[in-house]
């Protein structure tokens, strides 16, 4: 079957792609002209001094040896230890992953619950005031710098109105950790004040993260619904005199939703990427800030670890998306 061939074909490339990713990250951190050893050694260091430093850091071994060493350890599940937190990187990532996932899920929920209905309405009431307003809003949504949006939301809701906290995931100590998701853990332990606090803390970052995804979802849902509305079988139903809302519910919504579902999976990938900047603005203790802080602190082991993890996820997501695309739209030419 064509689909199976595609899936197998891409899976075969999974490991080489991942290795390629590692190689790129490795190369960036070890080879490019402004070599970190030289950076640490400073612009006016003599070559002898740089070499001494290189030996000290173990970077004097041949690059393929260093790389092979890293990959070998990785295969054993050892991502190395973070220079800064002094803990195994796998542990650090696991510790911080729930925060990012909770934020991303919240944003996804918001964008789906708000975006799809708005998209449908916008299509049904085409060229109405609502439609025009939404079209302007969605174009804007993709033009706003998300870090700026976050800051503006903070300015209004946290500073001026005082309705939400300014940043962070929670005030003080988190609830007893069962899943690592504060909302869930608070519910499971019956800790309602913490639940409320966590929800308030989640409000602004989730809204910021959801905004571009929401805009995309509205646009796409609108286009999808319009497509279906103009299709032949719908026209036939209307000609037959079926009431509008029946048509909407039975045919349009279902068709539009099916294609939207494939988009939602993709949305997750976009949101995860957007989380990096949003986490920076709201000081959210997730994977995004971990990656950025590791980079800023030249904690290269941590950077590589993050890259492996993120890379694996994205490659899998890309594969799933390509597969579902072929499933959904045989017209699409995917290799």
């Amino acid at each position: 079957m064509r689909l199976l061939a595609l899936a197998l074909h891409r899976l075969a490339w999974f490991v080489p792609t991942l290795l390629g990713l590692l190689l790129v990250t490795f190369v960036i951190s070890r080879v490019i002209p402004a070599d970190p050893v030289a950076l640490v050694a400073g612009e006016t260091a003599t070559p002898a001094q740089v070499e001494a430093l290189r030996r000290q850091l173990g970077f004097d071994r041949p690059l393929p040896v260093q790389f092979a060493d890293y990959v070998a350890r990785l295969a054993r599940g050892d991502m190395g230890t973070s220079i800064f937190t002094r803990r195994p990187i796998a542990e650090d990532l696991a510790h911080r992953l729930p925060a990012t996932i909770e934020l991303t899920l919240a944003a996804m929920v918001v964008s789906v619950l708000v975006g799809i209905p708005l998209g449908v309405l916008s299509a049904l009431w085409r060229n109405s005031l609502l439609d025009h307003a939404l079209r302007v809003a969605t174009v804007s949504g993709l033009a706003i710098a998300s870090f700026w949006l976050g800051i503006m939301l903070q300015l209004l809701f946290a500073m001026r109105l005082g309705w939400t906290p300014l940043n962070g995931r929670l005030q003080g100590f988190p609830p007893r950790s069962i899943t690592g998701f504060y909302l869930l853990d608070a519910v499971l332990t019956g800790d309602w004040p913490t639940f409320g606090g966590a929800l308030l803390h989640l409000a602004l970052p989730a809204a910021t993260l959801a905004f571009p995804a929401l805009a995309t979802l509205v646009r796409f849902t609108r286009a999808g619904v319009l497509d279906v509305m103009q299709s032949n079988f719908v026209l036939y139903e209307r000609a037959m005199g079926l009431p509008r809302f029946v048509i909407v519910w039975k045919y349009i919504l279902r068709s539009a939703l099916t294609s939207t579902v494939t988009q939602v999976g993709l949305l997750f990938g976009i949101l995860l990427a957007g989380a990096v900047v949003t986490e920076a603005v709201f000081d959210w203790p997730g994977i995004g800030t971990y990656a950025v802080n590791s980079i800023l602190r030249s904690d290269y082991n941590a950077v590589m670890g993050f890259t492996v993890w993120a890379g694996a996820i994205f490659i899998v997501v890309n594969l799933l998306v390509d597969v579902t695309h072929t499933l959904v739209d045989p017209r699409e030419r995917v290799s």
Partner: protein
Amino acid sequence: MSSSKGASTAVWFVLRRLTRDRSALLGFALIVALLLAALLAPVLSTHPDDVFELHPSERLRAPSRAHWLGTDRMGADVYSRLLFGARITILIGVIAVGASLIVGVPVGLVAGYYHGWVSDLLMRVSDVFLAVPQVVLAIAIAQTLGPSLPNVILALSATYWPWFARVAYAETRSIQKEVFVESTAALGASPWRLTALHVLPNIASPIIVRASIGMGFTILTAAALGFLGLGPPPPTPEWGRTIAESREFLPDAWWYATAPGLAIFLTVMGFNLLGDGLRDVLDPRLRRTHTARDE
């Protein structure tokens, strides 16, 4: 479609259709405004020296007749620094997208034209670059090389070229299946001839659309890098860095954070609107099947 006369008629046709699209016109106007602001910054600004000059005793003043958008933490005029920041924005956008195009399109063409392991390899390489969130890869590159203008451009180019490669690849593949291409190839035309005369003109539209949307996206990422402190160092009036600087003075000095953010918004909106308009005109087929993946 392959004669030069046909090409110029097509361009004229496109322009005519475009002028009828109000939002595309708005986008175009915004872009022109940005270009003017950048080009004429020394003339249009009220305090051109404030790009590097400090007036500590005038810091954090609200917008007034003297300072149209107020002053920043060093007493420099926000409006003037905004205009000079436009130069940096354009520079980064044009060079980064240009470089991505120059690298990405040929890669996509080759991958699309040939079949077999070469093609696979090239597309998997581009997958590698797409595998990590673009922002993170750009951050890593910028941090490694050191925060500066050229390094930001390099980082952005290195992370955006795969999008051009993908477009070029997909379009090349779909055109290959067109009968006229197959027959021309059967007649013995060389790959170069085929590419230059038949493939390139047909992929031009999606590439142009991608470039316009890419400008907006690149500018946003550049601003994010500046915000995180990885862009050109102080006292460069880069918009993202200015927003980062302003944070500690909120909520009182609201103009300090609002102005550069609005500048970014209007700029990116301009490119997005124009890109959308171009897409509607050049390739209506794309409009409907446009997916979130293209962003």
